[in-house]
Each structure stands twice: as structure tokens, then as C-alpha cells.
């Protein structure tokens, strides 16, 4: 057996193995990963209000925000939530992207994220008495009460380590005991020291919930909120603070939600389209390119097995756009083969025997294959950079498809062709190695 045939057999065997791996849908170690538009779920985009934060601290606050929201989504039992911050050129403000697979009840999702309380401590200053110029971060409240301004102290839910529920031993009223972290402890001591006798208002989501007077410097890092709430409200507050108060206020600016049934339908249709497309391409290849066409079909199947395995191994999150990119790549993967076969035909026409025509065809087609594929890869890279999740999915499967198909065309198709290349030409052999709707290419 010749070396070429041995290589071809090894390749074929490997392809079958890879193919077997790629059709293992129930595989738990390397499952296919599907995007929200197929698996069903909700995709939320929030914009964070960073106007009150020093620009040097924004990225830190954003990652704190991310952590808090991730904690909350985990708490509500969402499997594999994805929470990520997004910032960069061309973006207006700082974004937070939340992906919740399997969650299709948007109200519930928005509630679980957005209702996290924003806890703030603000100093109360009366304006009516002495005219204190208002600084940034202050606001006035309604006219009925004496005119006051609230001065931001920088103490927020973000510097609280934990909250505990307590009941006053005499009145039985519920109270919430807050313990600050190191940073909060220092800040709190500082604020209370400078403002003895002042009112330190505690805001929850912009509403005043307590207005204690600072009696002395508090440096043990503990504060108590008591007053206008029921035991149930106090309990909720404790839970919310412990599970994460938001370090920054956020606003929902985009929502996408896809039901699981419609996603399953998208996948089923995508698979159907891929199978039909594949079948039609194979029919075309065999009718037009005869024996080399059959080999190209085997090479195409190898390509599909290989790329599906790559999807599983990396893993690539498959979306409907990604599936479209993959299906498009099936059509374009054939291109390298077509280039080679057309060259093969020309070389046969020029009077070469089959074996040398195959070798010559490959080496001559290579430049075209290389240049045309590079241009496709450039497009894929720029598409990926364009970077909405939709287009990214397409660019990734399409770009990978171009790379992998170039590989299969120049290795698999080549090995197969060389393996069956005859030592002696006969009219029949020349016929099955030719292409087109007409008969065999004659020797000039």
C-alpha cells in the first residue's frame, strides 16, 4: 500500500472518530453551548450612573456593581448567569450586561436585579438659617418642611459589611444594625466626628428612612437604623443589604427575551437548513465534479465534523446568527475544492496525466486559495470587532469556518485525491476525474 493511501485511511478513520464526537449531543463533558436566543432567556443592558463617583474609582465601582448583581442572580437560582461590565470608546456611559439563561419572566428578572436597595447616608443642612453655598451632590426637598439640603457623605451600601436585625429591648421596635467594613468604618468615624449635633439622614432608594442625630463620634464602625418600619420591612432591608446594596444607581436601557419553545424551534430549523444545504451541495459536487466531487463531499463532511467539535471544545456559544455563519461556511468551504478541481481540469486539458495534473492543480490553486481566504478572514475579524453579541456569533463561526475549511481542503481533499490517483490513465478514469456536464477531456 502506498504512503498516500495509508495517510488517507488514517485521515478517514480520524474523521469518523471526530464525527462521532461531534454528534454526541447528550455529551455532558463537552456539551454544545447555546446562546439565549436558542436556549431561551433574558438579556438585559443597564447603564450605571457614575456621575457621583471620582473618575479614577469608576472601574472599581463598576466591578463592585458587577459582583453584587452576580451574587443576586446566583441567589435567585439562575443557572450560569453572565454579568459583565462594558465600557470603551464609542460607548455612552458605563454599561452592565446581564444574561439570564432560562429566565423568561422579564418582570421577575428586572425585579431581582433592580430592586436591590441603594443605601445612602447624607448630612442634613438647613439653608434658611445661614446661607451655605450648595456643593455638588446636594439636593433640596419639598417646601413644607424647613428648607434643607442634603450633603453627600460618600457613605453608601457599598461600604457596609453586614446588616443584622435587632429589636429594641424596651419598645420592641425593630432596628437594623449596620457594620461597616474597614473603609466604611474610617469614613463613618470621620463624618460623625466632624458633624456632631447634625442630622445624618439615611436614604433607601432615594427615600428618607431614618434621620438620627449624631451625638458623638462613632468609631466602632457600627450604626443603627430604627424608626419607621415594620418587622417585615426591617427583615427585607437586612436581607437586601447583606445580599448586596448597589454601589451605583443603574437604569435599564435594553431588554431582550426569548421563550424556550421559540428558541428550540430556531435550532431545529437551523439544523434542518444545514442538512438540506449540505445535501444539495453534495449532489451538486458529485454531478459536476464526479469522483473528485465525491471526495470533496467526504472532505466537506470532515470539515463539518471538525468544526462542530471545535464548537464543542472551545466552547463557542451558538446563536441563530452563529448557525447562519456556519451554514454559509458550508457553501464557501467548497470553494477551495472548486478552485483545485477547475485547475485539475485545465491541466488535464493541457495533456497531463491524471497524477501530475492533481499535483499541479493543487500547487497552482494554492495562491488563489490563500489570498481569497485571507480576505474572508479580514472581514470576519472586523465583523467580530463590530461586536454586538449577534454579529460576534456570526463572525466567530464564519471566521473559524474559513480557517478550518481551508485546512480540510488542502489536507483532506489532497490526500484523498492522491490516494486514488491512478498510475495509468484510461478513458474511463479520465472521465471520472473530469468535470462539467460534457464528457471527458480529450488529450490534445
Amino acid at each position, binding site marked *: 500500500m502506498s504512503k498516500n493511501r495509508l495517510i488517507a485511511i488514517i485521515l478517514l478513520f480520524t474523521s469518523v472518530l471526530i464525527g462521532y464526537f461531534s454528534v454526541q449531543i447528550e455529551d455532558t463533558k463537552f456539551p454544545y453551548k447555546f446562546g439565549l436566543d436558542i436556549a431561551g432567556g433574558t438579556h438585559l*443592558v443597564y447603564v450605571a450612573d457614575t456621575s457621583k463617583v471620582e473618575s479614577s474609582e469608576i472601574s472599581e465601582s463598576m466591578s463592585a456593581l458587577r459582583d453584587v448583581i452576580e451574587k443576586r442572580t446566583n441567589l435567585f437560582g439562575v443557572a450560569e448567569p453572565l454579568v459583565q461590565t462594558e465600557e470603551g470608546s*464609542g*460607548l*455612552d*456611559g458605563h454599561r452592565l450586561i446581564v444574561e439570564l439563561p432560562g429566565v*423568561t419572566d*422579564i*418582570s421577575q428578572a428586572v425585579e431581582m436585579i433592580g430592586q436591590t436597595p441603594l443605601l445612602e447616608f447624607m448630612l442634613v443642612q438647613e439653608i434658611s438659617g445661614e446661607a451655605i453655598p450648595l456643593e455638588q451632590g446636594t439636593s433640596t426637598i419639598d417646601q413644607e418642611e424647613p428648607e434643607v439640603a442634603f450633603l453627600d457623605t460618600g457613605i453608601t451600601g457599598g461600604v457596609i459589611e453586614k446588616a443584622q436585625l435587632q429589636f429594641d429591648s424596651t419598645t420592641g421596635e425593630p432596628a437594623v444594625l449596620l457594620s461597616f467594613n474597614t473603609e466604611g468604618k474610617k469614613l463613618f468615624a470621620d463624618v460623625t466626628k466632624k458633624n456632631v449635633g447634625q442630622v445624618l439622614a439615611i436614604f433607601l432608594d432615594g427615600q428618607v428612612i431614618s434621620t438620627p442625630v449624631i451625638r458623638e463620634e462613632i468609631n466602632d464602625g457600627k450604626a443603627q437604623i430604627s424608626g419607621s418600619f415594620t418587622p417585615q420591612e426591617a427583615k427585607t432591608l437586612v436581607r437586601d443589604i447583606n445580599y448586596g446594596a448597589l454601589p451605583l444607581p443603574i437604569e*435599564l*436601557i*435594553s*431588554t*431582550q*427575551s426569548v*421563550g424556550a419553545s*421559540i428558541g428550540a*424551534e*430556531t435550532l431545529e*430549523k437551523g439544523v*434542518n*437548513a444545514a442538512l*438540506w*444545504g*449540505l445535501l444539495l*451541495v453534495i449532489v*451538486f459536487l458529485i454531478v*459536476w465534479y464526479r469522483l473528485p466531487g465525491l471526495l470533496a463531499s467526504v472532505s466537506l463532511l470532515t470539515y463539518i465534523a471538525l468544526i462542530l467539535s471545535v464548537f464543542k471544545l472551545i466552547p463557542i456559544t451558538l446563536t*441563530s*446568527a452563529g*448557525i*447562519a455563519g456556519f*451554514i*454559509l461556511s*458550508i*457553501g*464557501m468551504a*467548497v*470553494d477551495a475544492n*472548486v*478552485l483545485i478541481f*477547475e485547475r485539475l481540469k485545465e491541466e488535464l486539458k493541457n495533456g497531463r496525466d491524471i497524477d501530475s495534473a492533481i499535483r499541479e492543480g493543487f500547487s*497552482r490553486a494554492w*495562491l*488563489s486559495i490563500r*489570498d*481569497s*481566504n*485571507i*480576505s*474572508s478572514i*479580514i*472581514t470576519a475579524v*472586523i*465583523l467580530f*470587532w463590530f*461586536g*454586538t453579541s449577534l*454579529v460576534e456569533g*456570526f463572525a466567530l463561526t*464564519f471566521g473559524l469556518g474559513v480557517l478550518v475549511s481551508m485546512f480540510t481542503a488542502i489536507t483532506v481533499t489532497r490526500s484523498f485525491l492522491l490516494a486514488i490517483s491512478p498510475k495509468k490513465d484510461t478513458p474511463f478514469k479520465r472521465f471520472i476525474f473530469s468535470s462539467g456536464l460534457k464528457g471527458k477531456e480529450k488529450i490534445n
Partner: protein
Amino acid sequence: MFVINHKKIFFIFSSLLVVSSIFIISIFGLNFGIDFKGGSILEVAYLNEEHLAIEDLKIDLQKLELGNLTVQETTFNDPQGDVNGIILRTKNLTELERESIISVISQNNQYQIEQKRYNSIGPVIGEELKGKALWAILVVVIAIILFVAFAFRKVTEVANSDNKVSSWKYGFAAIIALVHDILIPTGVFALLGHYFITYQIDSVFVMALLAILGFSVNDTIVVFDRIRENLSISKKEIFSETVGKSLKQTITRSINTSLTTLTVLLALYFWGGEATKQFALILSIGVVVGTYSSIFLASPLLTLFQKRK
């Protein structure tokens, strides 16, 4: 070669298509999807046969005063058989507004409904995406002209003195073909979008345009590659003969690759999901136009550039 000898006819034909596309785009404007202008799409299925008549639903929805909204009837394939449903397009909704719409559609839970798909995009994100899309197209076009000029940098070395055409001109010819290839599908969509609300210029459309760019330049490069090869082999031929010969040698390949690509795209159109139908349609138009332009436009243009020297 027929194509080179009659290149004027093809130039006129292409120019007519491009001019009418530009004309249609400027008259009708572009029907932007919600991801480019902001807005919401809500798809709801009625799980029971009985549901509110669409006219009554429209009247009730108008009462919410959400501005412009359109209601479109549709059917959803469900495991238990097809069910009726609606697709609602509105401005960008807040969560409260969405909930009130849902309760109108279900008539306060009188009818059993299922929200199949919901998409709401703020105008800020829309503007941002539109800007990004324009940039992406521009960057692809520039990257391609650079790549072609680079890949064919030695083309003047191999050619004889009469056939020397700068590699930048190859890049420029490719770009004219590309502009042609994206203007025509855009014109078709401007026309369709004027009459049918579903044909929209959105991220999916831009994605398809970029794929067209990739496909078309791929095709053009293969022809140029052959021209380069022939220039170095047969130095006695005049330029237009070499171009004609190269076209003849690559035309089967161009058509066959387009056919296989078109085949999978049509499969995607007929068997694929709703989300990718439009994509398949635009790209199919683009593949046809792109193949046409690489054969009848880009290469004949080269002979024109050569003569202009």
C-alpha cells in the same frame, strides 16, 4: 473575450442599477430596525383559540397612549399545533409599560397568553450601533483595498512594460465592485422596506452586507490572481486579452462557488428559522450581485484603468 469587448454594456447596466438604488434610497429612505433607532418588539402567542379580535386589541392599545404602534398577526408553531399570535412594534418601553401592554393583550388574564419574544432597545444604544455599523463597513472597505494593494504589490514586476497596472488600481477596481455590491441590496431593501415593515435595516442587515463584502472580494481576488499569473506567463499578449483569458479560465469556478453558496443560503431561507430568513435573502441578492460584479465589473474596469495611463 465577450465580456471585455462588450464591457460598456455591462458598465451601463451596473450604473443603471446603482443609480436607481441610490434614487430609491433617497426617495423612500431606509426603514431602520429597532436596534438602530430604538424601540420595542413584542411577540405574544394566544394559547387558546379564543382571543380578542385584532381591531379591538388595537383600540385598547391606543388607550395606553404609547405613541406609534403597529400590530401584526402571526402564527407560532407549537408542539401542540399552530397557535395564533401577534407581533407588536412600539417605541422603547419601560418595564411598567410592557406589563400594561401584556395585561391589555390578555385582557387582565382573561385569555391565556405566552410571551414568545421581547426586544426593547433604548435610542442611545441604537445610535451607537448605527455608528458602529457604518464604521465597520468603512473599515472593511479600507482593509480590503489595502490588502489587495499589498497582495498584488508585485503585479507590476511580472508584467511587460505595456501591461503595468499599479496594484492600487487593482484595489480601486475591487472597491468599485464592492460599493456596487452593497448599494444594490440596500436599494432592494429600501424598496421592500417602504412597502413591508418586516424588511428592515438592522444589525442583521449590516452583518449580511459585511458578509457580501467578504464574498465579493473573495471572488474578485481569484480573477485578479489569475490575471497576475497570466501576465507573467504570456508576456506578448496585450492587457485586455490577458484579462479576458483570465476571466474565461475562472468563470466556471466563480459561478460554481456562487451556486454552492446560493444553495445553502436558499436552504437557510426556506428551512431556517425566522431570525435568519432576512439574512439569507440579502446575502443571496449579494452573492448574485457580487459574482456579477467580479466578472463583469471589476476586471473590465482594470482594462479601462490600464488605457487611461
